[in-house]
């Protein structure tokens, strides 16, 4: 099958990739662009391990063909913080034991990031509903919810003091 060249902006960098029309975005990200933070848990859009942000929306990147992402801005876990300055969500997941095996974590944090953009002061119920598209087998979600709530609080405090 012939490959098409696609141009994307991934984590602030312009990149190109070659993909067949049938190739899923998650495969192109992981296998061509070395973006291995988003993981594959099901390839059927149930588990959310492959969650990325595309033009300000949470997207399960196994749901999309790579060619559909032509020209889009994509943010993955790799784009949220860096080793010298972690994102507040990354800090809070560490602090509140919001992860165990780490496999769902990149998708979970990326989803939580978008959730807090859309709803900066969520209730526990909002968080539980808002991340329900991302499965976790290790934590029972209790500490994930705690981490997201704590991140919201800190982000709001920062907002208030600046």
């Amino acid at each position, binding site marked *: 099958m012939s490959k098409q060249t696609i141009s994307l902006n991934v984590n602030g960098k312009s990149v190109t990739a070659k993909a067949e029309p049938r190739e899923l975005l998650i495969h192109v990200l992981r296998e061509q662009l070395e973006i291995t933070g988003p*993981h594959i848990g099901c390839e059927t859009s149930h588990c959310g391990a492959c969650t990325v942000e595309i033009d300000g929306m949470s997207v399960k990147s196994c749901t999309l063909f790579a060619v559909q992402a032509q020209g889009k801005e994509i943010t993955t876990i790799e784009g949220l913080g860096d080793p010298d300055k972690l994102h507040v969500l990354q800090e809070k997941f*560490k602090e509140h034991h919001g992860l165990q095996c780490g496999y769902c974590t990149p998708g979970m944090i990326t989803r939580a990031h978008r959730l807090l953009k859309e709803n900066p002061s969520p209730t526990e119920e909002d*968080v539980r509903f808002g991340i329900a598209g991302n499965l976790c*087998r290790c934590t029972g979600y*209790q500490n994930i919810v705690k981490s997201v709530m704590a991140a919201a609080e800190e982000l709001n405090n920062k907002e208030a003091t600046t």
Partner: protein
Amino acid sequence: MSATAESVQERRAALKGLGTSRKRVEDARFTQGKGNYVDDIKLPDMLFGDFVRSQHAHARVKSIDTSAAIELPGVIAVLTAKDLEPLSLHWMPTLAGDKQMVLADGKVLFQGQEVAFVVAEDRYIAADAVDLVKVEYEELPVLVDPFKAELPDAPILREDIADEKEGAHGARRHPNHIFTWEQGDKAGTEAVIGEADVVAEEMVYYHRTHPCPMETCGSVASMDKVNGKLTLWGTFQAPHVVRTVASLLSGIAEHNIRVVSPDIGGGFGNKVGVYPGYVCSIVASIVTGQPVKWVEDRMENLSATAFARDYWMQGKIAATKEGKILGLWCHTTADHGAFDACADPTKYPAGFMSICTGSYDIPTAYLAVDGIYTNKAPGGVAYRCSFRVTEAAYFIERMIEVLAIKLNMDAAELRAKNFIRKDQFPYQSALGWEYDSGDYHTAWDKALDAVGYKQLRAEQAQQVEDFKAGKTRKLMGVGLCHFTEIVGAGPVKNCDILGMGMFDSCEIRIHPTGSALARLGTISQGQGHATTFAQILASEIGISADDITIEEGDTDTAPYGLGTYGSRSTPVAGAATAMAGRKIRAKAQMIAAYLLEVHDNDLEWEVDRFVVKGAPERFKTMKEIAYASYNQAIPGVEPGLEAVSYYDPPNMTYPFGAYICVMDIDVDTGEAGVRQFYALDDCGTRINPMIIEGQVHGGLTEALAIAMGQEIAYDELGNVKTGTLMDFFIPTSWETPNYQTDYTETPSPHHPIGAKGVGESPNVGGVPAFSNAVNDAFRAFGLTHTHMPHDHWRIWQTANKLGLHN
């Protein structure tokens, strides 16, 4: 003096040792998307493997035509059993002493069975080629019901061993029968049951389910033909065992095989076994001379790699009319699927099912387990469980409830009346185990107080009245559970897998500047070993946990160990860590004595240093000793500071817990909501309370899944009905409740630091608590027992059968 005392405390706190809720060192890479899982491995010229799988549950393979697949550009090879046969790799041994087809050899025995292995340049071409392989089948009658396996018209599944009267676990009475395993006193138990005031009977079915970790199974094999070395990365809970098995199977000498378990995205027992995909990736790499990756998709994971449970447990429990239990009888029909691939220690074909007397002082007991072949996927692994302890705990905790109904007695009171008392430990159970320690009454009373048990029962009684009066359509269930686990396999004299004794190991190097590296034979899959093992060591050798690196999973560097499953890491490798630490400390004491010019016996250990007795100002810290060990010539003492310990535990450990679930059930919709869940765990000495709590939350959620909806179901043709996450229930954050955790602390008397293991307790205790809550909600309306999983439809049916919709 107070200043000194304070500094001792400060120094102890700085170690971040035992009992500290130390933050995890693993999390930096995981939160930044920098974990390194099998599917993240990318090697030059790496190929992708994919399976042609059987759509039939039982069929003869008449022919396999691979020609069209091979002609597809980008396809490098297509392997079938015929290609593997010259290497004797078309079958492989299972962990249970049976053998299993790697690729279909003449017939297929379950839907999803591996038939051919396609190797191609990328995963898309491999998938295309899979579709081009033409397999001609002749369908055979299918056996899905284990109770029909020995009927005269039952199809014979395993023709390869149909005539063998002896299996790996004794006599076989039928070609579809694998083994009968008996424990305890049959005649004595039947006599007690025949004479008792009260006997309760029930068939308790623990349905087939699946560990379903977020990351599926996979491997990358790379055969370096120049140097004759094979490297195998994979999702292995037991990398060293994989190396030995790979060597035995392939004929490659063990020193020429390196097995690496990188980061593992959850295991829960799914990644203990050896799968055809691993073998095929190795063979394909040997054949092609290129690295070959195989990663299964979710449907393959749910339908072909190891299932769990599927135990039909017929029980009888006898008691006096006052509620003192006299005897327990159990016959289990175990559906093992097409091959016996259970991951149990060799001498225990039904795992530790014989812990089914639970937390109770039951004088007489008998257990028999019949293993049966059916046309289902092989497995029978311990899904967040120590070898069938989940089944045992579910069985006894249901039988207790059934007995309470028969006696018309409160189920909490019945439990308390029969608990093994604190003064009875070490306790010899009727089925042969020596429980090391416990204090069940204290835990139980604490749990009942914490939830306000009496008020809950009063509220429940009122709600039943209101329901009967038409004032509400909701019912309330109080699910009780007091479980006892048996974990930490185990003493080498009892426990081996494929002949390999179940010890574990730790090797420590202290660096000259006083930091350390410790390597273990286990492998974390999310449990946080890099964090907690450093804490054990910190308390032993006085070096801060932050200055200790823990490494696991690379067989070229880590000492041999049997891996991580059955809650054995802390009981066995944790003990090895403490013992190796003590060897370090013993040598350090000799060095300190030399440096301080005193006799060894004149020194005492204090947190992070050796101090001269009676002269607190004279001491040497571990850091100073480490430096001297390398750089100072000490007569009679070798340079360096290293130690290794291979620990063979004297006994298992017996964690226990008291769980209470309060559930509200809508009689008209079958919906069940968890109002409260209280979990008290006693795992002995607590290493990291934060991680323990996280393990409990996670295990309870897996228990919620199993009890309330998760199932691997087959239809009568052997089709898997629950092969995707659309049908296989995994609770989301929306369905999952908040849990309330608590603890008591009864250290294990034989473990070096008194720890018992906790990761599996919440799954073992959680399932009966949830299930008992559902059953209890309908007790007042005549329900004795209803099978899991308690999804809304089944709960609605239960209510309907009881006439509650009239």
